[in-house]
């Protein structure tokens, strides 16, 4: 069993006899410290998408599907192509299949592709990824606490929040579950 707050893009769960792959998971704090989680789930049998909401603490049957180490080659708005590291076979995924993973996906990146009945159905990013800052306002000297954050763009074009001391060109470690800055790489 897995708690809903521990689920992230690429995880597979079984609900009421149906298999779903998590494509997106967003956490929000509610009243009295209780969190809610909004997830985009894809039904692996029907392909139907569900936007669903749960209270933190709810449990899911997690299912481990076959996964292959594949390298991301290239993509456009419709398809994103990955290559199997062992047999060089290529598989395509859609933007929806990639979900939140798209934020950190870089060409040549090697990641786990989830395979169900011979078809690629999603990817699972590592919990921690390194990214390069391509734009942010200049660093503020003296701020080492890291409590105040500013916007920064990484090499995939995704905007993240980083401490004021981070500069263009810096490499940073990000938590892909929460999209939170962890440290400088």
């Amino acid at each position, binding site marked *: 069993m897995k708690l809903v707050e521990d689920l992230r893009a690429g995880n597979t769960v079984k609900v009421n006899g149906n298999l779903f792959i998590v494509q997106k998971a967003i956490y*929000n*704090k509610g*009243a*009295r*410290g209780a969190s809610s989680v909004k997830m985009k789930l894809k039904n692996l049998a029907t392909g139907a998408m569900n936007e669903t909401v*749960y209270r933190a603490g709810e449990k899911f049957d997690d299912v481990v599907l076959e996964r292959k180490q594949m390298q991301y080659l290239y993509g456009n708005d419709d398809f994103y192509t990955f290559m199997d590291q062992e047999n060089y076979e290529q598989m395509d995924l859609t933007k929806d299949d990639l979900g939140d993973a798209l934020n950190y996906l870089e060409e040549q990146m090697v990641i786990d592709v989830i395979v169900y009945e011979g078809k690629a159905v999603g990817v699972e990013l590592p919990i921690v990824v390194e990214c390069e800052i391509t734009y942010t306002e200049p660093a503020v000297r003296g701020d080492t606490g890291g409590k105040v954050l500013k916007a920064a763009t990484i090499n995939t074009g995704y905007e993240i929040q980083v401490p004021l001391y981070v500069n263009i060109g810096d490499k940073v470690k990000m938590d892909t579950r929460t999209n939170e800055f962890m440290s400088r790489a």
Partner: protein
Amino acid sequence: MTFSTIDIFCNVVDNFGDIGVVYRFARALKAALPNSTMRVFVDDLVTFKVICSAIDPQKAVQEFESITWIDSSRLDETLVAQLGVAELVFETFACEIPQVYMKRAYYESTLLINLEHLSAEEWVEGYHEKESLLPEGTLKKFYFMPGFTERTGGLILNTTHPISVTTPNERLDAIKSLIPDQIHMYLHNPENMIFGSVFTYTRNLDRFVEDCISHSKPVTLLTFGQKTIHSFRKTLENCHLTPSQRSVHIVEACTIIEMPFIPQPNYDQLLQLMDFNIVRGEDSLTRAVLSGKPFIWNAYLQDNRYQIVKVEALCSIMHRWIANSQDFEEYQRLMIAFNSVPNESEMHPTNENFRYFLNNLKKFEHSINEMSYFMTRNCDLIKKITTFIRDYPNING
């Protein structure tokens, strides 16, 4: 879809917040769907009795206001078999519905709606009316998120008619009609008096009382709830004043009156007759917004000062109506300062300044009145929920 049977579940967590909202929600929903049989399952009837004196905590099942009230702590398979499950079930604030009930509801009920806590945060819109897949059965569950915008579940509106008074004496008479007789003798000087209601968590009120005392007009404060009354008594001690043995304390031109519990409809109307209100939690915040009178919100304290995020979100919504930048900045500053306390204690000093707020009550009243009008027209929770129910299963969740 029409549902002939409706069950509402409520767990009393602390204070009277949950049961207060559920009591209000149940009566409003029953008024909107009079042909549906409604039952409310509450796990703590002793607490419920404080706000609804007609309830007998000894009874497992009782009828009141055309609603059946059931002590859910006594639910077992026999009682569930006897009562059956409803076609439409509400869980409030993600409370845990007893498994003996859910085991049947998964297969026999049609729709389960989780009525969530009220929040002004932006993310609420994205969660509203979204499905939550259940582990078994044919039952479908959806989240219903109250909020302050058209794209949320809105607010439970007042069931009483708005009170309209034109003269200070009329206002005084109206206030007196809503509160116990023994308080009446302390209410006077209506032409010149500023009336405020105060309902807070335990906190330091030194600065607030100082600002009331130094205000150009005399101020009468009607204080509600044990935590508020305790906080005021501590403030009087901090000011080296001995709290009166009676329920009224007079400090220069400021009169502090300790109020007994009054019925919900009276409280709702009383807020409309005040010059300002200080409210806490969820339900009284809603009443304050709908009163159209200036208010300060004491948010429920959360870890890592998360209550400030909630206060800022509310201020952000209110900016639409408090358009003047100085008014808004002063108001937001006061709201954040008032909620910037690390814990629920009367000991922690605060640095809020009420003077601008108290000196500009009429301006703020104009803004909050417009906000109230907007909420009443566009954010009627009962209307939204009955529309959702009527349209189910043809919804866009």
